[in-house]
């Protein structure tokens, strides 16, 4: 097999996996802080896509400010969802699971009724391809990769060094201890949920010009995100990045040898293998 084909396959896998890492990071952040698994997380990805569609395709705004607005708007939608729904379900995993499933259907059906069922294209702000020998990536995807890496770095810095970020980590580790140290649990939870949703919105906004937008567009990224965080370890940022890169490698290389149906199964086989050998995931806390 030519080496260029192998490199191209890896590049294909990594490019998308990095965006799914953003979705996964949002999901794992929300789980760490509120103790809930938000099954409607993919719908916040979808909202990011539609916000970008309206900004660029309908109102004719430039893509970059539109993307920033979309991230902000979805973060705000996260604040609303947390205040109205998830604040009351903190730590109640089963209740939150059922409610988030309901929210998934409400948001998806609402999008169908409001935006229509057909795929809507989002004009791309970047054209052309980057070629290295026989390995090719579109400028559009290259920008998506850079933006995803940038956002992951910003999130890492925010959680590591900002006062609010440290408060989030404290709440994730021990809410009672954090409260005793004067951390405002409710505000921190709300902010954590908003940041988690904004990350999903960013991923949706980044991929909107690449794939077009449609109401069910959040289904696949959220499945990939679950694979990533189970493999990487729930609540671990480096774990999510590693999980994403592993998924990208497995799917990218797998696509050279297997049908697309079989490639979709590979991710789940990876999950089974990790759960059997290391149930808490590669970087998950015991």
């Amino acid at each position, binding site marked *: 097999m030519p080496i260029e084909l192998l490199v191209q396959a890896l590049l294909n896998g990594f490019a998308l996996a990095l965006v799914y890492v953003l979705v996964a990071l949002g999901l794992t952040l929300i789980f760490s802080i509120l103790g809930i698994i938000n099954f409607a997380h993919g719908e916040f990805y979808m909202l990011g896509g539609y916000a970008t569609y309206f900004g660029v395709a309908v109102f004719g705004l430039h893509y970059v400010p539109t993307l920033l607005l979309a991230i902000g708007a979805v973060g705000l939608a996260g604040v609303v969802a947390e205040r109205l729904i998830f604040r009351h379900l903190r730590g109640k995993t089963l209740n939150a699971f059922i409610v988030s499933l309901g929210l998934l259907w409400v948001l998806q059906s609402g999008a169908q009724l409001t935006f229509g069922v057909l795929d809507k*294209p989002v004009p*791309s702000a970047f054209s052309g391809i980057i*070629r290295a020998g026989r390995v090719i990536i579109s400028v559009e995807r290259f920008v998506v990769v850079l933006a995803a890496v940038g956002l992951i770095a910003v999130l890492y810095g925010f959680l590591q060094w900002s006062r609010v970020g440290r408060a989030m980590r404290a709440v994730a580790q021990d809410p009672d201890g954090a409260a005793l140290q004067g951390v405002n649990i409710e505000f921190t939870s709300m902010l954590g949920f908003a940041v988690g949703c904004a990350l999903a919105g960013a991923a949706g906004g980044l991929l909107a010009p690449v794939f077009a937008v449609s109401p069910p567009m959040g289904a696949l990224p959220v499945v990939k995100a679950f694979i990533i965080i189970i493999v990487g370890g729930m609540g671990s940022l480096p774990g999510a990045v590693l999980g994403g890169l592993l998924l990208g490698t497995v799917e990218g290389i797998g696509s050279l040898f297997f049908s697309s149906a079989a490639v979709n199964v590979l991710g789940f086989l990876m999950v089974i293998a990790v759960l059997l050998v290391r149930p808490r995931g590669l970087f998950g806390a015991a």
Partner: protein
Amino acid sequence: MMKGQRCHGWVLMLAAVLALGTAAPAAAAEKTLEIGVLGPLSGGAASYGVELLRGAEMRSDEINKAGGLKVGGDVYKIKLIAYDHKASAADAATAANKLVFQDKVKYIIGNAVGATCNAVQTVTEPQKVMFAFVCWGTNNLGPDKPHSFRSMLSQWEAAEPFYRWIKEKRPTIKKVAVISPNDTSGLDTNTAVVKAVKGLALDLVSEETYERGTKDFYPILTKILAKKPDLLDVAAAPPAEAGLILKQAHELGFRGAKGWTAGVNPVTLVGIAGVEAAEGVWSPVNINVRSDFVDPKVRKFGDEYEKRYKEVPGVIAVANYGAFDVFTKAMQEAGSVETDKVLAALTSRPYDTVWGRLVIGGKETYRIDRQFLYPMVISEIRGGKIVDIEQVLPAALKALKK
């Protein structure tokens, strides 16, 4: 006396009013004929379902506005009952059960995506429910499914003449790659394309399938483009997915010829792929409602459709409008809405429809005449617009015309 006459007059008037009161509803006692429409109204193939429903709405509204459908001594108002099956066979079976056993419909006019048709037929055939669809599975038609009709040309009518045309007009094209969804429609279309390609001594370098709903085609395209095809046929891919495949193939540097054997609704394809990546796509089953090659009735339908829905109709909308027209005309011919009588009337003679004179044939391929046959037009996307190039007759229709 006068008083008695006045009283008598009042009695007569009252009697007349009562008589009118009871007779009037009897004269206007319209019956309602409920007709089912199925299709993917959401998801990647939603444009199919939307067009099916709109085609049915256009014809049923025309009938209702004209006072209803006169069948024998009865007048029927048409009522549509539509369900979304999301291109899923399981959801299609559920929807068909609802239509047949809950809503009690005897006609389902409209469905798309092959696997869903198989599921629907497990309900419609035993119940003798008449079923018209645009699904592309070979096994959707056959002697064991006498109540089922395909209202649009399928890959088996289109692939061979399409590739014969390609070979004649573009002799430099030797290597062909084909990609379709991994389901009945897709696999069947790939089979028809492969048969046509090999039958015409062209070189099939890649035959791929993907799961419906796929957005990232880079992995599959990397494999396909490594074989250096001269022509990439996005055979049975629905418009949004075909658009993504062509966009991503263009990004990966593919500049060869592009075909879309099952191509419908190129407007959506151009929107998703972009003008540059969609340039030069040939399609044999799509229809340009403004073309000089199509029947004037199709052009009129296109104008009215665009006025109503602010979109240009694709072939599926025309096909389902035509199916609705043929079925309702057969009911009038039979003088009954009983399906046995309508079935006999429907298969007894050609009907004038939106397509012009419509022949129901296909016995050579399906062992029963249940395929709507009409001339096909090969079109090309140029600068984001659909340009018709040539009218080609399906082999079966050519044989019938001789």
